[in-house]
């Protein structure tokens, strides 16, 4: 973990309210893994006070770059849009535990919705680099919000897309159907999901039925991001009942079958 003043390489709007931010921060990039995140300080003053957690979208290690995609939802992300190339940005990272590609894995599915697609893109890249086949199940409000689509195409991933409006809105099907269809003949070795509880539940169900080892990336309100405040807990099903674990430290990636909220229907 490092705290560095990175330099903004680029910060621009991809689609309405969706921004792509690239920051040069070689110390962090050198150690960052897909699924991990950074805490960004958006203001230099006291308002807003807390850092904002953003997952790594891509990690361009040879450039020393970290890429993020963020959705403007409140004050912090609003301020972030005002940062321009050349500006300094206080970053803390890499933080948390990233995705686990298990030894022997040959075929995976990534399941993402909306901004939840962001942390899956770096994973897809890493997987393809290791010769793992990737099927991507992505959904969003509108086609422009399907992050990293071109990249996934380039990488040769299988694509199963759904949007509420526009191009991919016709075949309005549940992700479960998509999963069944894609993996009818052969189950994937692992599934990776991020973006909504419903999606997580679908993946949990599928994974339990088919015996797939799957992971989910969770979000929780964070103060420190580095494990000190115990503020970001989620409930985990452990041997002896439920217990709280820190999303910033033991997560944000968890095994789906551990995550208590996926069982609360």
């Amino acid at each position, binding site marked *: *973990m490092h705290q560095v003043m990175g330099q903004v390489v680029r910060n621009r709007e991809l689609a309405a309210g969706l921004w792509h931010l690239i920051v040069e921060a070689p110390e962090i990039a050198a150690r960052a893994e897909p699924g991990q995140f950074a805490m960004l300080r958006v203001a230099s003053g*006291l308002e807003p*006070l807390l850092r904002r957690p953003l997952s790594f979208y891509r990690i361009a290690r040879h450039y020393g770059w970290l890429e993020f995609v963020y959705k403007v939802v409140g004050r912090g992300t609003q301020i972030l849009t005002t940062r321009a190339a050349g500006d300094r940005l206080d970053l803390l990272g890499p933080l948390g535990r990233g995705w686990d590609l298990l030894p022997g894995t040959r075929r995976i599915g990534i399941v993402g919705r909306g901004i939840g697609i962001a942390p899956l893109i770096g994973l897809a890249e890493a997987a393809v680099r290791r010769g793992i086949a990737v099927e991507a199940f992505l959904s969003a409000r509108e086609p422009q919000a399907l992050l990293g689509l071109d990249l996934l195409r380039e990488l040769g991933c299988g694509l199963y897309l759904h949007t509420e409006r526009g191009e991919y809105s016709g075949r309005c099907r549940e992700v479960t159907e998509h999963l069944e269809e894609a993996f009818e003949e052969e189950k994937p070795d692992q599934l990776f999901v991020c973006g909504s509880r419903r999606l997580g539940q679908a993946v949990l169900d599928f994974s339990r039925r088919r015996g797939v080892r799957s992971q989910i990336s969770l979000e929780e*309100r964070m103060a420190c991001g580095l494990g000190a*405040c115990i503020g970001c*807990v989620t409930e985990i099903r452990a041997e002896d009942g439920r217990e*709280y674990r820190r999303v910033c430290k033991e997560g944000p990636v968890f095994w789906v079958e551990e995550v208590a909220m996926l069982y609360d229907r």
Partner: protein
Amino acid sequence: MTVNLTVKVAGIEMKNPLVTASGTYGFGQEYRDLYPPEVLGAVVTKTIRLRPHPGNPPPRVAEAPAGLINAIGIPSKGWDHYVREEVPRLRQLEVPIIQSIVGETLDEYVELTERLTELGFLAGIELNLSCPNLRAGGLSLGLDPDMVYELVRRVRAATDLPLLAKLTPNTADVVGLARSVQAGGADGIAMINTVRAMAIDLRTRRPVLGNISGGLSGPAIKPIALYQIWEVYEAVDIPIIGMGGATDYRDVLEFILAGARAVALGTVNFVDPSAAPRILRDLGRYLEENGIDDINDLVGAAHRT
């Protein structure tokens, strides 16, 4: 010029007046990548309990204007876990360790104190008196000067370690509490803890925190902290570890001028996890530039005209 930054608080020698605020620095491991805990005057660890406790349901934190509201609830994995997991790593640290504790009963405070004393490595014990669950009559124990006196007296009898009493600020009479803990035998006072507060989410039209209410910390409470420290300094003779919203060396100096002998960094650790070494550097520079050769000369100086 060499500036003296060492302070002695409740019998604990510290190489500088910067310490950590309980609950914001874990057990001394979390910030190690950024700076060694040894740069600090002392490490005050997260409050522990004798028995395991899950803490409050999430969400546990919410942001506020220039502040943070938390309802962590002092989760604890209990004594055995502490001894097995935390103590070995705490022993490695070459900095005074002050362990914060809370009890569900007076006996638990005493029991924890005895056990901690036996471990032999601690520089001191901080009694977290803000536990809202421990009640004496209708009142939360930490609000009742008599109960607080009794608690400190009993714990005092159980240990020779320096004892700090951490007061709640949610009272009309913090001076009464301070006098009580002094009378009970505390060697120092830590203040202020968080201020009772809550946040409401306009979207859901519900309280943000799982626990509904929580405690406000950060810059927002600095003026409240300064006031209470000022008042307590005038009323007691034991030293004060001041805290509540310090974010830079100026804040730290304001706490010292108000009467704090050491200053704890809390919420700022989340905002700028390298705050401690930064503030320490600025503090040294300020003293030098202003020709102050001993930080102790500034303690309570705002009271003297």
